[in-house]
């Protein structure tokens, strides 16, 4: 079912540099986005999590049995690293002194871009969190398909490969997933309104 992924891993195990490049180019950006959507970690920590996950993956390629898509296997490793990442973040100091000379000079140079203004970021973060919350309430393969299509911009063919389904079945699955997302989203909005007693 996941012959292409299995073959890619086989080529990597055989030391094929082009296979490694393909593996990295396809999966690293997607994993960064995957972790960003699911955590409140800062950017540097997100990068740490993804890098650690990829290093663990390439060190244990023999553990990939093609029972799921390669990306799905990587996300499972990522989840474990994410838990560790959150533990490490909790141990880090959350306050820095602006009086420190090195920090003070950096702060003086900071200019926040318009789209990074606090109001805009808060609204975007809140919207993203709500979308992720509703996605989390859908069956797993629905959420994966919607995230791959609208988050990662994958084609229907690529999603079909990832899910081990035909293109027609994937199109149909995406339609049903959107419909269920719409229902749950509307329900969540209604649920948020203060109803009169």
């Amino acid at each position, binding site marked *: 079912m996941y012959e292409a992924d299995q073959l890619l891993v*086989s080529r990597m195990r055989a*030391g094929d540099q082009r296979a490694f490049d393909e593996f*990295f180019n396809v999966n*690293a950006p997607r994993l960064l986005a995957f972790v960003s959507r699911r955590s409140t970690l800062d950017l540097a920590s997100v*990068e740490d999590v993804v890098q650690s996950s990829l290093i663990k993956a390439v060190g244990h390629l*023999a553990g990939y049995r093609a*029972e799921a898509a390669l990306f799905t296997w990587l996300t499972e490793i990522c989840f474990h690293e994410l838990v560790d990442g959150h533990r490490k973040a909790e141990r880090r100091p959350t306050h820095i002194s602006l009086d420190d000379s090195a920090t003070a000079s950096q702060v003086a140079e900071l200019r926040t871009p318009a789209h990074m203004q606090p109001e805009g970021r808060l609204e975007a973060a809140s919207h*993203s969190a709500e979308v992720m919350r509703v996605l989390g309430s859908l069956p797993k393969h629905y959420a994966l398909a919607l995230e791959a299509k609208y988050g990662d911009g994958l084609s229907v063919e690529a999603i079909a490969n990832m899910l*081990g389904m035909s293109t027609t079945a994937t199109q149909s699955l995406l339609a049903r997933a959107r419909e269920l*997302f719409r229902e749950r989203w509307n329900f969540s909005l209604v649920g948020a309104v203060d109803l009169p007693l």
Partner: protein
Amino acid sequence: MTDPEVEQLLSRGLATRPANTETLERMRTAVSQAWKAAPNLAQSPATVESPRAGSRWALWGGLAIAASLVALSVTLLAIRPVVDRQIVGSLARSIDAGVEISQGFARARGLGAGDPLRVGDTLKVRGPILVALAQGGSLRAAPDTVMTVASDTQITLERGLIYLDKPPARGETRPMRIATRSGLIEHLGTEFEVMSDDHAVRIRVREGQVRFSGASGALVANAGTELLSSRAGAIAERPIQTYGRDWLWIAELTPNFAVEGRSLMDYLEWVSRELGRPLVFANDQARDSARRTILHGSAQNQASLDALADVLSTTTLSYELAEGAIRVHSN
């Protein structure tokens, strides 16, 4: 909320900042180093990226002055870097004793699931194996089969029994070929079985067509046909069933089918192909129902009539065998 609004909502909610190029390159370096140091590599990637052919040539070239050209050729064949040889597939499954692989005069070694097969490899099959082909499709081989991967489109069958399942690929210009001592078999988009030894070859076509070229000429065999040809060129042809006892040996090597989220139609078509039994629907209602029904969960021994009955028992459909075909109808 309209469909475009839902799509916009999802796109906005799932958007992330594009990964920084510098970050990705830093990460690539770290991951690449870990990959090159990984213990599970078949060989060091450093050798693959830049094989030090020059020093090897110099070493063996020196010996070649004193030795014969034949000895040099033999040596070069044995030390030929693995990277030169194209990967044509990987071992997806092996049962019992598995398979041994060798190349040139190198010592034979066992092959594990996921290991690559390359042009030039010779396989000695001890237990049944399933190979996933890089170009799509699969190859199954029975115990006591010996074959060599001659190129990305040709396998030389020294002896034994193999089964090739390779649906026609769009734009494919070079057909897959099986070379035997008694003749050459060309794949024309099909499933077929080849058994060969020193004296004769037997070809059984399950789906599609194959072209056979032997000592007495070439002919095309259609689905449901068996060809027998001797090395001298005598050919016999007879009709066969595409299902039943003769095909049982490939059943234990059936590739897995992920049931979850697939349509019942996908599953029925797959079972039909694996069992070699045509799929027919009693009416349009049954066909529509198969298209609309989405499966969840898992099924054991999926490519069997028992599994088919189990799967259909959870739907409004059932089946019967009619003249070898799987006939699906509404309850």
